[in-house]
């Protein structure tokens, strides 16, 4: 800490932006290269990893912001993922004809309302959930964990009640089926769409966070909610908005995942929740960029290891989490002061 800096003599330590974590996914992809026999397989696996990473990022980004800003642990986040997927199925199953037609317009005419419904329903449910279930237990972590877990269970069961326990098939729209070839590598069209969607969400979030006053408030609130209030902002109003945004993103992620797997089932929320938590922890609670990188890392690793050592695939995410935490105990980009 320099002694006197009221005049121009003081030198500020050069700030190196923390680029290291950004390089990790690239490093991982490059490290995997020599191990994978054919270049085209590597390309396919990498694109698969990128696509999966984007979907997970969309699902997880809301959670990290919600925790970072509101200090709320929503163990029920998985419910929004599943509900989003089911709402899409609700629209797409009756419109199977349009989905199977080989026309972009007809496909869009089915997909757009599906996404709209998924996003709308999860947004509204997020509002209700925040006001009714979460607001009474602000600041009480244990109760939040318990109540949101309860909420998750109830939501999953209600899905069983209305939709039955069996899987519902959700085939991709005809124009997004299949792959195109780059050299010997087969690249699925849908995966490219996922990458585009994921990148758009990421860039949109960065834009809002860094260029708007609301984004400013969110970033400041993640660090120190008290001080933001002491500056005169009623930040609790922002909470509801952020929560809704988070649940909406979860719903969108659910739709993407459902189409990816070409089926939806009520248990998907719980299964994906663990993955989402791991990604959020790796990225650092409250950091959108960290979440993005974490998602890419987990997805890429799962794909590469799934190819190379299939038995390890299911625990790859945990091993990755342990490795990252040993390096940076609070995640790649710890933002909050907690």
């Amino acid at each position, binding site marked *: 800490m320099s002694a006197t800096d009221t005049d121009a003599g003081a030198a500020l330590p050069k700030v190196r932006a923390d680029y290291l974590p950004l390089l990790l996914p690239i490093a991982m992809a490059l490290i995997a290269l020599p191990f994978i026999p054919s270049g085209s397989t590597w390309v396919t696996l990498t694109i698969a990893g990128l696509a999966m990473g984007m979907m997970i990022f969309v699902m997880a980004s809301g959670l990290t912001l919600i925790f970072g800003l509101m200090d709320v*642990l929503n163990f029920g986040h998985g419910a929004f993922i599943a509900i989003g997927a089911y709402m899409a199925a609700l629209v797409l199953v009756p419109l199977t004809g349009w989905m199977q037609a080989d026309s972009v317009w007809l496909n869009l005419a089915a997909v757009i309302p599906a996404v709209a419904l998924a996003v709308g329903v999860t947004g509204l449910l997020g509002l209700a959930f925040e006001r009714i279930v979460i607001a009474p237990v602000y600041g009480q972590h244990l109760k939040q964990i*318990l109540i949101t877990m309860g909420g998750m*269970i109830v939501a999953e069961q209600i899905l069983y009640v*209305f939709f039955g326990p069996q899987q519902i098939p959700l085939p991709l729209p005809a124009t997004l089926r299949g792959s195109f070839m780059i050299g010997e590598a087969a690249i699925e069209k849908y995966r490219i769409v996922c990458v585009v969607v994921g990148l758009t969400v990421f860039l949109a979030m960065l834009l809002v966070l860094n260029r708007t006053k609301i984004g400013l408030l969110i970033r400041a609130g993640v660090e120190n909610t008290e001080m933001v209030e002491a500056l005169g902002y009623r930040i609790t109003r922002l909470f509801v908005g952020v929560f809704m945004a988070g649940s909406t993103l979860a719903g969108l992620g659910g739709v993407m995942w459902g189409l990816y797997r070409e089926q939806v089932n009520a248990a998907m929320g719980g299964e994906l929740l663990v993955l989402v*938590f791991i990604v959020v922890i790796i990225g650092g*609670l409250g950091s959108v960029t960290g979440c993005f990188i974490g998602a890419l890392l987990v997805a890429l690793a799962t794909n590469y290891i799934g190819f190379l050592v299939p038995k390890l695939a299911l625990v790859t995410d945990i091993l990755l989490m342990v490795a990252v*935490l040993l390096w940076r*105990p609070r995640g790649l980009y710890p933002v909050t002061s907690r």
Partner: protein
Amino acid sequence: MTSRFMPLSGDPPRSKVLAVALIAIALGLALAPFLFPGAKPLNVAAKICIFIALAASYDLLLGYTGVVSFAHTMFYGIGSYGVAIALYGLGARWDAVGLGLIVALPLAALLALVIGLFSLRVQTIFFAMITLAVASAFAVLASQLSWLTGGEDGRSFRVPEVLQPGTVFIPRDVLGVAVTGRTLTYYLVFVCCVLLFLLLLRVVNSPFGRVLQAIRENPFRAEALGYRTVVHRILANCIAAAVAAAAGALNALWLRYTGPDTSLSFAIMLDILLIVVIGGMGTLYGAVIGGTLYIMAQNYLQTLMSSLSTAAGNAGIPVLPQLFHPDRWLLWLGILFILSVYFFPTGIVGKLRGGSG
């Protein structure tokens, strides 16, 4: 009336209603083979004993140390599988049981130690999420290593002869109820669970236990007073894990089977969580009351639900048949869970104690 009734380690029920309830439960469980003859009631009674021990071990973690962990079923599973694998591999002998225990209990404690050490580097919230991840990884592992664990199907095995149902000690015509190896197994389970519970009571009322409570109240203060909070937390973790593993071993002996669904499923974790929360966190007696009520409801309420569901179906009402379908047990569980967190934060025991001032 002395409050230093030694077996209770100086931690009396502190409520007349609670004391009566506890005595009733204790007597009911002790005399279960004779009071409630039949396979199913005995099954329920055994499950109650085991879950009381299991839930009490979780209360040590959650209620007394303030640690939120979702990996507790892992330790239960280790105990279960330890005994199961030994009996399956070595045959129905007592030394197999012993071997299973000797491997499983320290393994559970060791795993708890490793997890506890990890908590040095991460905060409570991280810890909860990480235990969730670890528990699911473990479950995956158990079903993947099917050569060892029998995979999804689990392991069936025979227990030592003296515990087998076929072994008759006292035929039915003497006492009205046959005393068989099953009865003996039941009493083995019962006595062990009682001992485990009393052990936990001793732990939480020892100086170690009081430090745990101080840490739960205010970790910074405890640290400032010179207590190494992490060491205490880790130790509590290990003790809880060992007790859970012991409960798992008993479960395996009783069921003569161990599989992912009976010992590792997340449903069991939720059961334990619910029992401790509804019964009353940080009381240990909450595990007794909560466990009894919960297991009874789980077994007998589903029958009720089934008849409600059929009735609604016959009446032609939409949705209700699915709502009351016995498989939807978790739905009502979940709602009850949420309501109890809101309205009964101190649990049943807390309410009873508060009421009698």
